């Protein structure tokens, strides 16, 4: 007995009738770094304690020493499945705070990028739900089309996953013809694939049996738990920031907000699926609008905000004003106005909010990210309690939990 004394078993753990099961921090079922301490009775989940914080990177503290443009790469790392939405959300917050008016073309280009990001986000989530229910094929198949989206990002900003796309006031450079060609290729090929993907799951007997009636939540509980985005819409509340508080000229577009009824895994799948079709339609409309600009207007890709938008390099070398602005921006010499703002965009997972408090210094006095994931993950226990362990895994993936968004 003596030699085993270093194993400190919790009191009563021999006598109890349930099993404690650790899922995570790194487990194939968590798709990210977070832990679930589950109490299971056979295959039934009795209770669970979700633990987050394994990749906390102190973004809010870091942001207190960074000028606005240096915060953009931080936002990449929140929901890294749809970084461009985070980037744009941050730019839009800054622009609203600094009262910068954007040209329409910039708005439409942003809409294209944001909707592409939404598609890539939903694509991952839905195909991962497929993987967790036992259908790996769909996941591997649609990866090719996420690749097409990433190629468009690459053409626009030079990087793929953590994009740092755009600047305060617009984009760092105009979209090239190659970018538009790649966009056309995506718009041509993707809808067909999405249809195939949908056929693989939506009326698939096994998939329906696995997802219907599991992980469900009522609209009222979902609101009380602070759900937003597709997860709230699956429960039947048609709240979409793009419609309620339009940003980046979303009011110019015609699209539907799909809603579910039961808020279960199946409805979440269907809502995300329907949203991808809407996103394709929005991208098509935006692309049409972008093409309708002619002459000098077709070359506009940023607003005139010298204090925040870096001047062209050739101007920096030849013109004094440009050189001054360049140094002021790079050195972070520009003081912000005093005040505070809360601004939100519809991220892949829901309302991604930025609460910025400025005391008139060069950096934010306080910056808080409202991460939708972090808020709705609290409901996980209520969603899975009494259900099967294998359903809990599906629920976890259908909530689209992104570890980067759980921990700021």
């Amino acid at each position, binding site marked *: 007995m003596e030699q085993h004394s270093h194993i400190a078993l919790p009191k009563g753990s021999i006598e109890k009738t349930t099993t404690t099961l650790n899922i995570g921090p790194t487990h194939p079922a968590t798709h990210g770094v977070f832990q679930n301490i589950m109490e299971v009775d056979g295959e039934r989940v009795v209770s669970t304690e979700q633990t987050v*914080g394994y990749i906390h990177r102190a973004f809010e503290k870091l942001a207190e020493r960074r000028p606005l443009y240096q915060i953009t790469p931080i936002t990449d790392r929140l929901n890294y499945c749809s970084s461009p939405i985070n980037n744009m959300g941050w730019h839009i917050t800054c622009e609203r705070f600094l009262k910068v008016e954007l040209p329409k073309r910039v708005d439409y280009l942003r809409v294209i990028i944001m909707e592409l990001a939404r598609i890539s986000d939903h694509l991952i989530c839905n195909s991962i739900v497929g993987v967790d229910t036992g259908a790996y094929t769909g996941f591997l198949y649609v990866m090719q089309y996420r690749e097409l989206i990433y190629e468009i990002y690459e053409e626009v900003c030079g990087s793929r996953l953590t994009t740092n796309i755009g600047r305060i006031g617009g984009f760092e450079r105009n979209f090239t013809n190659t970018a538009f060609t790649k966009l056309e290729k995506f718009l041509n090929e993707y809808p067909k694939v999405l249809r195939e993907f949908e056929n693989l799951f939506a009326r698939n007997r096994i998939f329906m049996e696995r997802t219907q009636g599991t992980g469900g939540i009522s609209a009222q509980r979902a609101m*009380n738990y602070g759900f937003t985005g597709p997860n709230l819409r699956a429960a039947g509340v048609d709240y979409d920031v793009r419609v309620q508080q339009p940003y980046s000229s979303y009011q110019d577009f015609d699209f539907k907000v799909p809603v579910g009824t039961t808020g279960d895994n199946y409805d979440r799948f269907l809502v995300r699926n329907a949203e991808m079709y809407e996103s394709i339609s929005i991208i098509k409309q935006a692309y049409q609008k972008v093409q309708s600009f002619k002459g000098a207007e077709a070359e506009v890709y940023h607003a005139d905000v010298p204090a925040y938008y870096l001047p062209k390099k050739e101007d920096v070398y030849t013109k004094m004003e440009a050189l001054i602005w360049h140094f002021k921006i790079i050195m972070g010499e520009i003081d912000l106005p005093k005040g*505070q703002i*809360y601004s939100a965009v519809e991220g892949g997972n829901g309302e991604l909010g930025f*609460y910025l408090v400025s005391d008139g210094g060069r950096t934010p006095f*306080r910056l808080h990210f409202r991460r939708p994931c*972090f808020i709705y993950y609290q409901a996980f226990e209520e969603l899975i309690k009494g259900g099967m362990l294998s359903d809990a895994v599906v629920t976890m993936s259908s909530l689209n939990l992104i570890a980067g968004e759980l921990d700021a």
Partner: protein
Amino acid sequence: MALSNEYIQEKLVEKFNDQVFQFSTDSGILSFESSTEINLKVLQFLYDEPSLGFTFLTDLCGVNYPDHSGAELVVVYHLHNFIENIRIRYSISVPEAKPDVFTATKLFESANWMERETYDFFGINFIGHPNLKRILNVDEMDYFPLRKEFPLEDQTRIDKDDEMFGRG
């Protein structure tokens, strides 16, 4: 009837008189403060009053103003009325010496983790919270990192051993 900022302010003042103050409209959102001890009453009133209906807690976070003596820590609530599509910002302040605030978890389940996060980073003690412990930082931490007194690393320091970071 469209809900306006003026109406909300009128309703609040009618109910709480001089216990609610500092009304201002910052970029379209009505902000106001109240005395700390009535925070739950204010939230409950905003939730229950049919003509207000702020039933969605968008965000809850802390802010630290080290210069505001006696009110160093601030808790900020962002509330949303989905039907009227209007947001408000409500804040209360507490002294660093006694950072006690009543928890909103009875009203909003979503407040649970947001309050834990605020406790984790600012050390605000939410009275009545069912599980007030650190959430993002390690349990053994003995300071509250988002308070201004906690410094960021000096960017000019040269005593770092680069070999540790594979740059040696």
